[in-house]
């Protein structure tokens, strides 16, 4: 919980990791990819305040003590949601697997929610694995990384018939939340790897599932926004938006937040630190203190304490049925307030 000016903020970090990208875990023959991947992540950390930068060695593999201190002790987080990303073509034991995350979650009861993953290219074996993972870990959510390389394939889309089979199975097994990450090098390479239109199809066809688009489709925010206005079950995951823009590019951060508040609305935006790319502490403190820097943003929806409480934790708590202490809940009238387009002024005359 974070407290500022007498207000108590319940914090759900809905997108974080505990990875092992140390050289010992690089797959022989794929070292360039394994090294390039983690160096790319490390470069993103440079967008944070300098005093929170880590050495590459530390960044490759944070310890359990680091994580507990950075996220919970110093970082105000009440509940953290592990997003599993395998990347086994590059990392021998996986980048951060459900199994590894679950082991940590078990040691610290009540602190973590463990999300699983599936990959439609794994076929029947993948379905069996999903069933067993749900039974073993009680999964409520999964993370999709559509650009993951596998046996010569460089990715997939949620529109693939095989993906639909997994979505059906997920729904049947009681999974509620599907976090989708878009990244480069999706197959086929001549298409736009960041295209979010496949999420549009899946969200329409699986209305009982929630689709949390991590990094809000960055760098395709406009496509994401147009889609999210049409799909009630599509959410904006703010990982990278806060970490990557709030400190390094404050003016663009304000514009991106303004657009998201207008198109998507404060009830469908969720905080994620993307730890350990970035530590949650400065992101949470910064967001609570944040407002638009100046008049040029006056036609975007306003932000207030309720907006920030929703984004930092209450929205994700709803998605994952997390109990929120009474002192952190919103007064009834704030909770019912309509968000987004209604109270925004259209640009222009």
């Amino acid at each position, binding site marked *: 919980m974070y407290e500022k000016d007498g207000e108590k903020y319940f914090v759900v970090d809905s997108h974080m990791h505990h990875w092992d990208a140390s050289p010992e875990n690089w797959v022989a023959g794929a070292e360039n990819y394994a090294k390039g*991947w983690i160096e790319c992540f490390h*470069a993103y950390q*440079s967008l944070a305040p*300098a005093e929170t*930068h*880590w050495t590459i060695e530390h960044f490759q593999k944070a310890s359990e003590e680091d994580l507990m201190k950075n996220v919970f002790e110093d970082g105000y987080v009440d509940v953290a949601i592990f997003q599993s990303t395998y990347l086994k073509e590059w990392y021998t034991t996986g980048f951060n697997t459900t199994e590894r995350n679950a082991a940590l979650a078990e040691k610290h009861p009540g602190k973590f929610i463990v999300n699983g993953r599936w990959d439609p290219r794994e076929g029947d074996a993948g379905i069996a694995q999903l069933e067993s993972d749900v039974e073993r870990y009680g999964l409520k959510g999964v993370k999709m990384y559509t650009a993951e390389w596998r046996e010569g394939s460089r990715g997939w889309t949620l529109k693939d018939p095989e993906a639909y089979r997994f979505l059906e199975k997920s729904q049947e097994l009681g999974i509620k939340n599907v976090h989708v990450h878009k990244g480069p090098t999706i197959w086929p*390479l001549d298409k736009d790897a*960041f295209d979010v239109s496949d999420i549009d199809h899946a969200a329409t066809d699986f209305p009982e599932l929630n689709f949390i688009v991590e990094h809000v489709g960055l760098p395709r925010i406009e496509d994401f926004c147009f889609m999210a206005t049409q799909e009630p079950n599509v959410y904006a995951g703010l990982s990278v938006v806060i970490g990557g823009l709030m400190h390094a590019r404050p003016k663009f951060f304000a514009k991106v937040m303004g657009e998201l508040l207008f198109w998507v609305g404060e009830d469908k935006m969720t905080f994620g630190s993307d730890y350990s790319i970035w530590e949650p502490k400065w992101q949470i403190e910064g967001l609570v203190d944040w407002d638009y820097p100046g008049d040029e943003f006056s036609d975007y929806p306003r932000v207030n304490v309720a907006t920030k409480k929703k984004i930092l934790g209450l929205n994700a708590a709803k998605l994952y049925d997390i109990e929120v202490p009474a002192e952190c809940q919103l007064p009834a009238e704030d909770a019912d307030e309509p968000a987004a387009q209604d109270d925004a002024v259209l640009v222009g005359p």
Partner: protein
Amino acid sequence: MRPAATAAASRVLVALESVRDPELDESITSLGFVASCTVSDDGVAQVRLQLPTYFCAPNFAFLMVADAYDAVSAVSGVSRADIVLEDHFASTEINGGVAARAGFVQSFDGEAVDELESLRATFVRKAVWAGTDRVCRPLIAAGRSGEELVGLTLGEVPASGDLDRLRSRRVELGLPAGDGDPLLIDPSSGTAIRAEDLPLHLRKARVTRVSVEANSGICRSLLQERYRPVGAQGDKR
């Protein structure tokens, strides 16, 4: 290097200014993607390109290398263009493919089903959206009403770099771009925008511009981080 070669190198740099990152709609020179550019006495132009990350999308990277190859090859005094993309996971395929004039599908055998022109067009269309915001925003600030905006032709808009850029992107897509054509058109169909559709149209233009410019900002930061001078690294702990 002889004066002739120096002059040719300047011409090569000018030619590279015309090469754009298709996704960001900015020149690769202003983005800092050109790491070095030399021309030897026998006219071989050597250009090294660098991108913000090791995993930048290979399709856009391919287009930039191929466009640079075409632009540099056309410079007078250049006998051969040697364009090298460095530090990228697909450097070998891209550099080899462009040098052999192989096209994208052949360069990425089995990984692509089409050349990149439709991808390029998608992003030029985004550039038209973003450019619409750049041109309209000052007009609105100057007090133009919605009715006036939908009635404006391109020839009636005060001259500006942003207007030139918008027109040239419309030309690239085969959209109406003459003096008598409307300022506000649907970037897909080319039809004029009606007054009742204006607020949403401007909203779409603005979010597209925000998206492209925020993306561009992140790319610049990452490039700077990746290639900053040795010794300038951040603090450690």
